[in-house]
């Protein structure tokens, strides 16, 4: 027996709030199987849950474990809905594609992983290249998937220079105007982003999502 929209939407929302990956995925499959309008499913099923999670975070009720677990549940749902959404006209609605990674010579990836998870939950399609990533790879991947934004993480004084080199690399290729470049990590700062001509800096994962959204919207 399939559930009606009125029945299934609140459950989707609850699955996100509870951070229940399995339920989020199963409900997405059920909705896809039932032939529901998937855009509506995202809008009225999952997004209210995600908004609630955001509120609980703002209120100090939720902490990182809840936030990231909910983000993971959202990811599980989007893994089912994403491909179908992309095929339909709704594909254009996606906030955008982002390539992210920690720069070459640097293996710090905890912060970068948090940022990647939150961006994904925020509706971005995220291509995470991992840590110690050659600058060349960022360009390759962004070109390959048609990303709009590239995020570089660096935690060492000795590797932050790679963020600067990356901007130069894009310029040399005549690609600078094509991508928004965001930088972050302990030694980076707003001033550093300005100095190297990056498009933005954010101090944590929540701010990174807001920044990516405002830049994606503004372009």
């Amino acid at each position, binding site marked *: 027996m399939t559930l009606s929209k009125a029945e299934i939407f609140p459950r989707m929302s609850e699955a996100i709030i509870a951070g229940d990956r399995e339920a989020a995925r199963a409900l997405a499959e059920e909705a896809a199987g039932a032939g529901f309008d998937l855009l509506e499913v995202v809008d009225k099923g999952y997004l209210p849950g995600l908004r609630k999670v955001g509120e609980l975070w703002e209120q*100090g009720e939720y902490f990182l*474990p809840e936030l990231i677990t909910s983000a993971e549940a959202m990811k599980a749902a989007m893994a089912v809905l994403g491909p179908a959404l992309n095929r339909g006209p709704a594909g254009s609605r996606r906030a955008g594609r982002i390539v992210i990674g920690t720069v070459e010579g640097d293996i710090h990836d*905890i*912060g970068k992983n948090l940022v990647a998870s939150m961006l994904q939950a925020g509706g971005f399609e995220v291509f995470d290249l991992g840590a110690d990533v050659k600058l060349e790879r960022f360009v390759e991947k962004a070109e390959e998937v048609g990303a709009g934004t590239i995020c570089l993480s660096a935690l060492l*004084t*000795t590797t932050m220079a790679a963020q600067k080199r990356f901007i130069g690399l894009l310029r040399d290729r005549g690609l600078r105007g094509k991508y928004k470049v965001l930088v972050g990590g*302990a030694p980076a700062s707003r001033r550093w982003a300005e100095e190297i001509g990056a498009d933005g800096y954010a101090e944590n994962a929540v701010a990174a999502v807001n920044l990516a959204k405002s830049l994606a919207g503004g372009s």
Partner: protein
Amino acid sequence: MIETRRPKLELLSREFVERIIDEGLTLLERHGVLVENAEALDLLTAAGARVDPSTGMARIGRPIIEAALATAPPSVTVYDRSGGRAFTVGGDEVHFDPGSAGVTLLDHDTRTQRQASAADLAAFYKLTETLEHLHFQSTCLVPADVPSRVADAYRLWLGLVLSEKPFVTGTFRVEGFRPMKDLLAAVRGGESGLRARPLAIFDACPSPPLKWSNLTAQSLVDAARAGVPSELISMGMTGATSPTTIAGTLVQHVAESLSGVAIVQLAAAGAPVIFGGSPSSFDMRHGTTPMGAMETMMIDVGYAQIGKALKLPTHAYMALSDAKVNDAQAGFETGLGAVLAALAGINVVSGPGMLDFESCMSLEKLVIDDGLCAMAYRLIEGVAQRDDPIALGVFDGFRPGQSFLTHPHTRRWYRTEHLPAGLADRDPYEAWAAAGGTTIVDKAHDDVARRLGRYSAPPLAGDLRRDLDGIMSAYARSSGVPAPALPAA
């Protein structure tokens, strides 16, 4: 005379220590550690560890660890640059050194952070040289104006030119070890001299959970073969890169550290290795790694107790703060850390001068913290019986209303028993107000200037300066960067 008791903090029961060690060993045996370095993997394989060559996962059985613990020395003696002064890293000896590898410097006048330069690093070396409660130097900043490819060796070169004290340092690149070792050996007149009298300790961090990266595993192997002490900096972040419980993180700490001890001992049996760390109670709201959290200090004190049970020298990142300026938080977090570390008898305590989750250094804080270290040392000296009888003799012939100020007993003992105020304010209110109502930070700022003005470089023997410069510039040349110079004073 009654023997003076050294006050001591032990957080865990013996039974708990044994259980944690036991689970750590089981974890190594069953789950294993990921080792991304071929040489270390070969050593482990040869010793009988079950290594999966396709993944680099090494399951290390108890006999391997037991053998490693049997050859690892319970203490290491490091010597200053001239070789004249020895420091035992072991037992309950405590040596403070500045926090290491900061990214930025807190500017006193603007109260903002800025990128650190080589000149800033030189100022820290000079200041540390004048601070008597900091027994060691650390390569405490990463200068942004030095080519990153030679930054690790540059920091050590600059330090050896400016300071007598032993160093706590580390590599940034696999290639960095060689020139750093050459610099140290040059000071000792050769590699055997360096082996006999270590001058620097090398930090090497496993990547939590349960992984040794190529860089850090190589550093362990290289250092062991050169007889250079390695300091294992395991750093679980509770609930993020290690179990969220304090005891759970201690289990991981034991497994990571003991796998490091094994790599060191397999590379060179008997090589010095220190059971250290920089774990943190991960902040679930801010996504940060607070070093000033009480739980962080509980993990530190806990693993130090375990390290002692394993008969290894110990280290921790304590006596530092997450505050952004020198405020009350900076003081209380640093003070708590210094006192707890001293009570726990942690041999190397890295932290003074440091703010903002191990990322910012402050000259003013360094002198303030030197005073805190003095208090911590005083505490662990304990309460001594100076006289027998303790006080009855002092009261002999004592008249009502008489003061102790003029009593010979006071002049005999007050300087031994009581520390002077240092930078702490002990003026009566009116005097304080009349003197401008300054804070300890203002006083520290003046003290920094005074100390830097007084500093003069301890002379280097013979041609040593030329040799050090030669090693540094050869490394720069082979790295394709210009030879870095001494920053202008």
